[in-house]
């Protein structure tokens, strides 16, 4: 029996890795390498980071890992599926708000209204659509299912009508704009511009306690690893190959008897679910969810990290998202203005001149020294583009 061997975890670049039946030895070696990579990642996240980093830095890392979860989804939808989604903030926000609403209600205690509603004093009782979120059995699944449902609704409408490319990007961005305006406008029930802030507890644990913050970090790290496993399976499955085929030749796939709309829809919905989960975990890690965290600008920033790391790879988006978020914190603390220039420049340079992201540099370096078969990867993905980068 032969199996398709996927990419070694670190170096997946560009197109779907070569399939077919490589020798069993090579296959086992690759699998071993993937497992080893996973183990290393787990060790880093669960042992090294908590030992080396201060509580403050660890909670920052927790925040970055949430952004990395969004990036995993963007990598699938955009890198693999070609859908440039500039509205992931919407799904991140839906997950975040669902979680925050539950935590606010839990903080307030049974039957009481969250503090900000009492403050604004516009409401006599809890709005109807808040009520189900009092139950964790509703709120927790909702953090993931709600974004997926919205993505399913929008996706099935637009993909079926073959709205794609730039049109889809603009539409997804408009969705983010509409969501933010809606949240800000409904101040009495959503907290408006402030968002939902000052979250105290997380299922009975006090979030001010560093020990509990650490626990939240571990939950986040575990979820990220879980999402990576899921993403790897998707990318290496037949579906993953089909998704790339749809990206590069949607009409051709249609003539093979597939409905490309469904293929894209799955990737889009999965990416939305990942963003929702990330948003939900972001809330206990940071203690706040607000429109400023989910609007047009943060939504497009999710894409930056992915582009920097390598859009079509598995780990690239994760590392890129963490690196960009880290750089932002490090630089904007000291030189706020400079960071904005740098961020813009980074975007211009990476997207224009290194579209495979940093992962393509890694792959290039590996390929120089490695026995990797020639022609197995290209730095850039579109067939019409023969010019490669770097």
């Amino acid at each position: 029996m032969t199996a398709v061997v996927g990419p070694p975890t670190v170096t997946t670049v560009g197109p779907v890795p070569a399939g077919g039946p490589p020798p069993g030895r090579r296959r086992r070696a690759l699998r071993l390498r993937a497992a080893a990579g996973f183990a290393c990642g787990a060790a880093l996240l669960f042992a090294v980071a908590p030992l080396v980093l201060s509580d403050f830095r660890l909670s920052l890392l927790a925040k970055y890992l949430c952004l990395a979860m969004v990036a995993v989804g963007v990598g699938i939808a955009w890198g693999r599926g070609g859908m440039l989604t500039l509205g992931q903030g919407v799904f991140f926000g839906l997950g975040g708000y669902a979680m925050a609403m539950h935590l606010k209600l839990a903080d307030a205690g049974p039957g009481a209204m969250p503090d900000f509603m009492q403050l604004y004093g516009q409401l006599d009782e809890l709005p109807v659509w808040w009520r189900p979120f009092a139950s964790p059995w509703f709120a927790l699944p909702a953090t993931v299912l709600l974004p997926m449902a919205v993505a399913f609704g929008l996706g099935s409408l637009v993909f079926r009508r073959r709205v794609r490319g730039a049109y889809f990007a603009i539409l997804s961005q408009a969705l983010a704009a509409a969501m933010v305006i809606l949240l800000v406008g409904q101040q009495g029930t959503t907290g408006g511009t402030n968002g939902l802030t000052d979250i105290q507890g997380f299922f009975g644990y006090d979030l001010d306690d560093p020990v509990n913050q650490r626990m939240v970090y571990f939950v986040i790290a575990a979820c990220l690893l879980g999402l990576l496993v899921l993403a790897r399976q998707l990318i290496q499955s037949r579906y993953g190959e089909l998704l790339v085929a749809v990206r590069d030749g949607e009409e051709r796939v249609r003539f093979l008897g597939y409905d490309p709309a469904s293929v894209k829809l799955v990737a889009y919905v999965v990416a939305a679910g990942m963003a929702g989960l990330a948003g939900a975990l972001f809330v206990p890690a940071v203690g706040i969810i607000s429109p400023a965290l989910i609007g047009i600008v943060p939504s497009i920033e999710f894409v930056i990290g992915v582009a920097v790391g390598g859009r079509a790879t598995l780990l690239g988006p994760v590392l890129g998202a963490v690196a960009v978020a880290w750089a932002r914190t490090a630089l904007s603390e000291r030189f706020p203005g400079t960071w904005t220039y740098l961020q813009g420049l980074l975007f211009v340079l990476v997207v224009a001149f290194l579209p495979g992201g940093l992962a393509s540099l890694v792959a290039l370096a590996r390929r120089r020294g490695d026995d990797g078969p020639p022609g197995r990867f290209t730095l850039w993905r579109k067939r019409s583009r023969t010019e490669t980068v770097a």
Partner: protein
Amino acid sequence: MSGPDGLAIRDLRVSFDGFTAVDGVSLDVPPGDIRFLIGPNGAGKTTLVDAVTGLVRATGSVRFGEHELLGRAVHRISRLGVGRTFQTSTVFEELTVLQNLDIAAGARRSWATLVRRRHGVPDEVAAALDTIGLAGHVDQLAGTLAHGQKQWLEIGMLLVQDARLLLLDEPVAGMSHEERDATGTLLEKVSRDRTVVVIEHDMDFLRRFARTVTVLHAGKVLSEGTVAQVQADPRVQEVYLGHPVDAAGTAPAGTEA
């Protein structure tokens, strides 16, 4: 597997913004035929194939076996066993030969199968690899294949797709003589249990491999029959062979164009 079905087109019309590209075409392609569609540029050949495969809207009737094709979505028509290629090759260049064929074979797969990895080479893919002579290239990226090999891969994709009707748009354009011969032999082989329709300008290729020929001109059927019958038709000589550009432009030297 049932035997091949025939294609029956009745009064097919396609217009774009007032311009009628296909103007009341009726034709029958019997099961197992290798039918060549020829005609000057703009005769409506590709548009006819577009209409049959659901890419453009058309009126009239197109029946394949017992199914009416008009009005169905592209992917539904494909699932009824109608496959086509395009003038420019459209293989997935960043996937391997094997991945290309496996995707083509998979339109009827369940989601449960799709989200798992492929293990080994599916039987129908292995068979197609043999037929199209690319068994030695399974792991090569389709984008790195030679031009002729890409065209064969396209045909192979139609085979694993289990297309019973193959609509090929200029399959030998840009091929060398040897590649043309190999393609012709391939068509003869696959037509044993399939119906094949070929759009082609290459007269030499046509004479060697066409079983029947339909000549289109200005959106209408001008002539139909065997190669000899069509060549003897004075109307064909007038509108088609009478225009040396159309024939000589693509036909190899030595044809009587």
